[in-house]
C-alpha cells in the first residue's frame, strides 16, 4: 500500500510540475494582458480591458493580423490538395522510391528554418515577388507540409485495401472510388492536417521575417518589431488573441473529427 502511495505521489508531482511549466507562459501572458498599468507585469496591476481596446484601435496590428490570416489561408489551401494526394499515394500505392520520397519530404524539418528561409528569400527575390503575401503562404506550406502528409498517411494507412475493391465490385469506376470512398475515409486526416497547417502558418515567424517587407509584415513579425522599441501590455493582449485563435482551431478540430484522431496521427 505505502509503495503504491509513494509511487502515486511521485507521479502526481511530475504531472503537476509539467502542467505548471507548460501553462505558465500562457497564464503570465493572459494575466499581464488584463493589467491596468502601462508596463507588462505579472501579477497585473489592477484589472482592465484597456489594452484589448488599444489593439482593436491599432490599425497596424489589425492589418498585420489580417495579413497573417491571409498567409495561413493560402498555406492551407495549397497544402490540402498537395498533402492529401501525396499522403494517400505514399500510404496506399506502391510508389517507386517511396522511401526516398518520404525522406525527401521530411527534409524541410532537418534543414534549419533560417537556412530554408534564406533559400526561399533568394528564390522569391529573383522572381521579384518579395513583398506580396502569397510567397509567404507558399513558404509556410513548404516547410510545414510534412505535418499534413503525416496526418493524411495516418488516416490512409488504416484504410483496408479491400475498400476500393469493394467499391469496384459495387460498380464504381476508378474516379468515383477515389471521390466516394478513399477521400471521405481519409477526411479526418485532411481536416487535422489542414488545421495544423493553418495554426503553424499563422504563428510562423522566422521565415515570414525573411520574406516580408514593411508593407507586408505579418503579426508575429509586427510583434517582434514592437518588442524592439517598447514593451507595452498591448503585446500581451495580442498574444492572448493569438492563443485564442489556436484554441478555437483546436475546438473546431475536436468538433469535426475528435481529438483522438489528432492525437493518434503520427
Amino acid at each position, binding site marked *: 500500500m505505502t509503495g503504491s502511495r509513494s509511487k502515486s505521489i511521485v507521479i502526481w508531482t511530475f504531472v503537476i510540475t509539467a502542467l505548471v511549466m507548460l501553462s505558465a507562459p500562457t497564464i503570465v501572458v493572459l494575466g499581464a494582458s488584463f493589467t491596468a498599468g502601462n508596463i507588462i507585469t505579472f501579477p497585473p496591476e489592477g484589472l482592465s480591458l484597456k489594452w484589448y481596446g488599444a489593439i482593436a484601435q491599432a490599425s497596424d496590428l489589425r492589418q498585420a493580423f489580417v495579413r497573417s490570416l491571409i498567409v495561413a489561408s493560402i498555406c492551407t489551401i495549397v497544402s490540402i490538395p498537395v498533402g492529401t494526394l501525396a499522403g494517400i499515394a505514399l500510404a496506399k500505392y506502391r510508389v517507386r522510391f517511396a522511401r526516398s520520397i518520404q525522406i525527401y519530404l521530411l527534409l524541410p524539418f532537418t534543414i534549419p528554418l533560417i537556412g530554408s528561409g534564406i533559400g526561399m528569400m533568394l528564390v522569391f527575390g529573383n522572381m521579384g515577388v518579395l513583398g506580396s503575401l502569397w510567397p509567404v503562404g507558399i513558404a509556410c506550406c513548404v516547410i510545414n507540409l510534412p505535418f499534413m502528409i503525416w496526418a493524411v498517411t495516418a488516416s490512409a494507412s488504416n484504410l483496408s485495401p479491400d475498400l476500393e475493391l*469493394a467499391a*469496384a*465490385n*459495387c*460498380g464504381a469506376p476508378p474516379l468515383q472510388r477515389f471521390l466516394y470512398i478513399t477521400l*471521405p475515409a481519409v477526411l479526418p486526416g485532411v481536416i487535422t492536417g489542414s488545421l495544423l497547417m493553418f495554426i503553424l502558418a499563422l504563428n510562423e515567424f522566422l521565415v515570414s521575417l525573411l520574406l516580408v517587407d514593411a508593407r507586408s509584415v505579418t503579426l508575429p513579425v509586427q510583434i517582434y518589431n514592437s518588442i524592439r522599441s517598447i514593451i507595452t501590455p498591448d503585446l500581451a493582449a495580442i498574444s492572448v488573441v493569438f492563443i485564442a485563435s489556436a484554441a478555437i482551431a483546436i475546438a473546431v478540430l475536436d468538433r469535426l473529427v475528435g481529438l483522438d484522431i489528432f492525437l493518434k496521427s503520427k
Partner: protein
Amino acid sequence: MPAASAERRVSRESIAVSVRDVGMAFGDVHAVRNASFDLPKGKFLTILGPSGSGKTTLLRMIAGFDAPTSGEIFINNSPVSAVPPHRRAIGMVFQKLALFPHMTAAENVAFPLKMRRHDARAIPEKVERYLQLVRLGGYGGRRINELSGGQQQRVAIARALVFEPDLLLLDEPLAALDRKLREEMQLEFRRIQKELGVTTINVTHDQREALVVSDEVIVMEGGRIQQKAEPVHAYRSPANTFVANFIGVTNFIEGVVAARDGALVSVAAHGRTLTGVAVGDAPATGGACAGAVRAEQIRIAPRADALDRLDTVLAGTVADAIFEGERIVYEVRVPHLGDQLVRVFDHDPVNHLQFSPGDSVCLGWNARDMHVFKK
C-alpha cells in the same frame, strides 16, 4: 442429331460461370493451375481448401481483381478477362467485409444502386427491402461501427445482393466469427441463396461450412482442383488421399497392393492383409498404396466376438479418450499396424460402454469402408 445439339444449347445457357484452363502465375509461382469447371445457374458452389491452395486467387480472378495469366473465364457465356470489375454484375462479400466506414448501413446498401445508376426514386424502398431480407429492417440509419459483427455481416450481404447480380461471391466472410454465430450465418446464407436463387461461389477452409451450405464442392490444393462433387459424394467417395484427409477424419494405412479382384484390393501392411475398395486409377499389384478408413466407420468393442460380422478386426490399446459432447474420440494404438494410432468415433457416448486409456479393445470395419488410393 438436331435433338442432341438443342439439348446442348439449353445446357450451355444454363451455365452461369465457366472456368476454362485458368492459371495464375506470379513469376515461377503458380497460385492456380489449369482450373476448369462449370457452374449451373442458381447453384451454390463452395471452393474448399487450406490457406495457400489458390482458392482465393481463383475467386479474385472471377471478381475481376486479378487477370488470369492463362485460360479464360466465361460469365453467362461471355469471356470476361477484358472486363474491369466495376463492369461485371457480381456481388461480393469480403473476408473483412470492407463496409464503407463513413456511411450508414442504408448508404452502404444504396451505394451499388447509385453507382449502377438505378432510378434514384426507387433506391430507398429497395434498400429497405434488402435490409429486411437480411433481417435488419429499421437498422438502415445506424453507422457501421454501431452494429454488431453479425449485423455487419448482414449489411455486407445486402450490399452484395441489392443490385440483383448474376453471381454472388463469398470470400470467407464467416472466418472471423465465433462458432455459434458462424453456424447461424451459414444457414442464413443458405436461406437467402435459396430465396433469391442467385448463383453463388463461396470460398472457405472450413469443411463443415462447405458441407452444410453447398450444392457442389470443389476441393483445391496446391493450385489444382482435386475434386468437384456434391458434398455427400465428396465425403463418401473422396477422389484422392488429400480430399479424404481434408474432409472428415480419416485413418490412412500404408502398404502395397497384394492382389486385385475387380474393385476389391488386398493391401499388405505390416505383415497383414486388409481388404478394401479401389478408388480412381488404383495401383497395380505390388504398387504402393494407402487404405483410408473414416473414424466413424470403425466399430470399437471390448472383445473381438462382438465384431465377428466385420471384415477386418484388429486388437489395440486405448491411448486417449477425448470427450467432445456428442461423441467420444478414441485414439487406439494398434500393434498389428506398426503401433499406428487409429482414431475412432463413438457417436453414442451416453448408452455405450466407455473405455479409458490403457484398456484393451478391438477395432473392426467392413471392406467396403476402406478406400484404397494410389500413393
